[in-house]
């Protein structure tokens, strides 16, 4: 991508990663979040999938230190659970000494199911099956007590600009589509006429 103007527009789209549903700062008691659902969306796994795709990036942006793991399996009939791990004592977290490679990680082959809570940890679960992602988010915010992040006036203005740009783009796209459709229709008519003319020519011979 070279065009600087285009680049600025795309950078503005980074706002999407910062603000919107899911932009919230979690309280410091939360040690990690674990999502467990199926690979495909049927049988009530659409909500968790959407939550992961739309809300989780923003949560991760505002809480980069909290591990958020997504463990997916091929079992469509299985449960869709979110586990939130709370630190019970206010004492500082014991440093996780196991190397990063051996720690649980996100997976698509059901490698790392939700681990049992460590001592002095408490788990809160949310059943996500057959739920809309918005409903999951409200339940999540309520159970964690997260504080929402609101865009600053500057950012709000930028967001508005992005929106306007999109609207303008839609209008322009409609105009171009109309023009192209007209062109294609004419070409089609011409082709048809030519074929007919040739057919007549052949018949005359």
């Amino acid at each position, binding site marked *: 991508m070279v065009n600087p103007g285009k680049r600025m527009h795309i950078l503005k789209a980074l706002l999407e*990663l910062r603000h919107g549903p899911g932009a919230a700062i979690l309280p410091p008691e939360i040690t990690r979040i674990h999502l467990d659902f199926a690979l495909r969306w049927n049988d009530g796994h659409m909500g968790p999938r959407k939550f*992961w795709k739309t809300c989780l990036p923003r949560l991760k942006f505002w809480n980069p230190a909290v591990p958020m793991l997504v463990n997916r399996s091929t079992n469509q009939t299985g449960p869709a659970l979110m586990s939130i791990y709370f630190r019970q004592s206010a004492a500082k977290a014991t440093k996780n000494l196991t190397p990063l490679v051996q720690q649980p*990680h996100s997976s698509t082959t059901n490698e790392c199911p939700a681990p049992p809570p460590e001592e002095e940890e408490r788990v809160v679960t949310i059943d996500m099956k057959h739920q809309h992602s918005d409903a999951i988010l409200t339940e999540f915010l309520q159970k964690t007590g997260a504080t929402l992040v609101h865009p600053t006036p500057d950012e709000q203005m930028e967001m508005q600009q992005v929106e306007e740009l999109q609207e303008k783009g839609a209008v322009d796209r409609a105009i171009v589509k109309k023009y192209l459709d007209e062109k294609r229709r004419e070409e089609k008519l011409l082709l048809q006429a030519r074929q007919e003319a040739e057919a007549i020519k052949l018949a005359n011979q």
Partner: protein
Amino acid sequence: MATPKQCISSLARLSLTSTARPTATSIPRFLAPSITQVQAQQTRYAGGGTAQMQARAREKEKLKKKRKQQRFKEYKFAVPSKAEQFSLCDAMRYLRAAEVGRPPTSVTYEVSLKIRTIKNGPVVRNRVRLPYPVKNDTRIGVICPENTNLVHDARQAGAVAFGEASLFKLIKENPNNLPFNRLICHQDSVPALNKAGLGRILGPKGLMPSLKTNTITKSIKGMMTEMVGAETYREKIGAIRMPIGNIQFNPKQLSDNIKTLVMQVKGDIEAMEDRVNKDLIEVVLTSTNGPGFSLNGGFLPTDEMIEPDHLSTAM
């Protein structure tokens, strides 16, 4: 034709530069007709001007044309402004957010070095040994004269296939299932390799040893130790793109890797200076599914709430 606007502008100029301009009143009457003629010549025309002015205009036009031609000889590039550049930790924060919930085995940080370069010149290509290798599945085959110490050396250094005639036979028999993914050749075996005519098989796979790709050597051992954990890179369409780290790397590791690569590419560009002029324009960090961030060379995050340590948790 003098429009009223021009008259006014000339008046303004008169008032600004007070001296050395003869006014109409000071001219003797008997000279008046010739003076008026001179004044008529001095009014500006579109294509007019003295010979010097015309020459200058021609020169300018030529330069413009040359610049335009030059533009198509080079790949397009744009120098990013400060506003669209990020420090390493900021970029990592965005990328880790974009990659949340993906298995870390399938996600890597990638880097793209944009280079200002002409389209038909020599390209930058070399190997780099990153301090923290992204992945390590290098299997090396060695072409060297059989029944010499070289075979022993190759075996010691961990080659999966070695020899001369036997190796050629192996390659010819099952070209689609080769045990190695890198092939190097000793200098003494080059004639034999050329005679064997394996270019058709090895060429498309990018395995054919040649001086250009730095895969013909005198010391098998040195080359092999250099190759294990080394990644090749090559400039394509004015950019070098290569994976630079696992998504689980911490900021320090990633910055070490990026620094190593950038320093080496700068060295390569310097080495080519007598042949072709190239510039490193920008360093863009991206990830498998994330957006790209032009780096400004800084390390620390701009947000005070975030520390570099926060960016090294499990993904």
